[in-house]
């Protein structure tokens, strides 16, 4: 679900774990559910 390339970028930059969760995981999860909800309301 989370973009592997973004996680690789985070690894290379040695991003702190809390920042990875806040700025990569959470926005990706929100975007995933938004897309799901959008698809449902289209049906």
């Amino acid at each position, binding site marked *: 679900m989370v973009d592997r390339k973004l996680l690789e970028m985070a690894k290379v930059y040695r991003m702190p774990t809390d920042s990875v969760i806040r700025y990569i995981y959470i*926005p990706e999860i929100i975007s995933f559910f938004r897309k799901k909800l959008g698809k449902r309301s289209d049906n």
Partner: protein
Amino acid sequence: MIIEVKDVSKSYNGKKVLDNFSLNIEDEHSYVITGDRGCGKTTLMRLILGLEKPDEGHVGLLGDYKYPYINAGVVFQEDRLVDGLDAVTNVAMVSKKIFRETVAEELIKFLPKELINVPVRKLSVAQRKIVAIVRACCIPSDVLIMDEPFTCVDSDTKKKLISFIREKQGKGPLVIMADNVEGFDFARIIKM
């Protein structure tokens, strides 16, 4: 610091991408690694960054003291930005050692002020590439490594970006992977 790439070979699915390749990357020097597409430039970058292991040979970090890993400012071929976040956040999020105000000052050298606080999904490909370059240059790093950083960027902006990158390079090495070597007369050109 010296990054030593020694007799490195790497294959994918039986196809040899790098064959016994060696290179020493030294402080205060700039390198442009060039060659046809598929010649192994990106693979070399990934090996230097420790994202891949060589099949043969080794990549080492040499210096006055032992470096456990490279602190690198990196531009990937793709911009690798979080679409829903603005340019300032995309840059500032990678390190707690940089301030949003400083990042904003750097970004407005290249982007209209009104664009730095909107989600990067609204920016053009070239503008997103600029954000990725500023991100690489803003963090404290031992080396700057950039894979095709100027694709889609016009020639005037490319010149400005090269000056910006060289100013931020400091005493560390700069390594640029590029198909086209135009505008890189300051660097040592290495053909793969």
